[in-house]
């Protein structure tokens, strides 16, 4: 039985097409690259200044001058490029990243994302997330559907906003949900759950696609 993370990462990988410039957030989104089929070649962007990032470096092969945005040593692919942070965020903000995949604390039916701060508890900062969500052509949120049964998909986020109205698609272990002008639209559902159960675990109105599909898991 695949874990929630595997289900989410594998499904998210299917959103990527050959030639896409892709930025993957730290954590679960990083797993997505493992599930991209060999026939699909993507160009990974790392906000600290890489296009053409490869896998994590194997032990004892690390180049200490080459890290990813999560402070891990990485390999680079043939044809890769390094650049400074202003160029990197010109790529990001300027609409040259096709797809950004990142996690969420909360996401709402207007496509507004909260991902960077829990007041009074977690202080980390937004890093590059605000620019990535504002500037990328397509924003995919990968997240568990709830935090211990507390919904993360809401009618309005209650935590500090990372970016407004920019999320296009939400992929959880239970469902694939598109953010439309009419709110959340359930497009795909895990074979072991029901629309009623997904509704119970979602803190907003959930429209169901006429073409509802079963998630491949």
């Amino acid at each position, binding site marked *: 039985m695949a874990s929630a993370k595997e289900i989410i990462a594998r499904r998210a990988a299917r959103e990527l097409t050959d030639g896409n410039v892709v930025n993957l957030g730290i954590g679960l989104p990083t797993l997505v690259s493992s599930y991209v089929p060999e026939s699909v070649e993507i160009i990974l962007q790392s906000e600290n200044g890489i296009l053409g990032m490869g896998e994590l470096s194997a032990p004892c092969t690390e180049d200490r*001058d080459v890290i990813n945005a999560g402070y891990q040593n990485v390999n680079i692919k043939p044809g890769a490029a390094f650049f400074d942070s202003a160029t990197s965020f010109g790529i990001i903000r300027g609409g040259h990243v096709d797809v950004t995949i990142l996690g969420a604390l909360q996401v709402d039916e207007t496509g507004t994302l909260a991902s960077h701060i829990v007041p009074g508890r977690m202080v980390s900062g937004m890093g590059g997330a605000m*620019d990535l969500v504002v500037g990328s052509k397509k924003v995919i949120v990968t997240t568990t559907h709830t935090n211990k049964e507390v919904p993360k998909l809401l009618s309005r986020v209650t935590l500090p906003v990372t970016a407004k109205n920019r999320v296009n698609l939400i992929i959880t272990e239970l469902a694939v949900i598109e953010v439309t002008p009419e709110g959340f639209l359930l497009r795909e559902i895990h074979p072991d759950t029901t629309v009623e159960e997904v509704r119970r675990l979602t803190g907003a109105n959930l429209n169901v696609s006429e073409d509802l599909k079963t998630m491949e898991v």
Partner: protein
Amino acid sequence: MKNKIVSLEEAMEFIHDGQTIMVGGFMTCGTPEILMDGIVKKGARGLTGICNDGGVPGKGIGKLIQAKLLKKLIASHIGLNPQAGEQMNAGELEIVLVPQGSLAEKIRAGGAGLGGVLTPTGLGTEVEEGKQKIVLEGVEYLVELPLKADVALIRGSIVDKAGNVFYNGTTRNFNPMMATAAATVICAAEKIVEVGELGPNYVMTPGIFVDYIVGGEL
């Protein structure tokens, strides 16, 4: 031409209590560690740091945080340095969080003679608080003002004696912008070469921006 190569002790003569300092590097990659050590040894206090992040405890700008030399840190992220969060909660360190792309542009603007930059990033978030908003051709932007510093502390992989800098791999990050935006720029060099040995095609920061070079960066 003046000799730009100085000892660490000589370089530290330009660091004083209360200054604003820019520190290159992304999660310590590309941070001039010997200059961080020099400031800790000197014990300059009440500094305002401008850096992408808070480093990690005891490394990068984290060395200055650990020694409690910063009163304020302007950064995009402090998540890998719990000491920064602890000092913030204790009221010892003021943290100003800036989106990473806006931070890069604010520093670039500071060095490029621009009055600021217009960005959509941060609209509708707490980042817009206290900042001017402008609508141009129907699109709303946040006005982000330039950032400058008294001293920029950068790290070069190969630096020639005229101050021309080559940055290896992802050590480049904020270093080139910071080199343009401070009154005094000190570059810690991993390797120092003669003028002419670093081909002009490989120069990422022209030497005119670098005032002093300190060798011995590991």
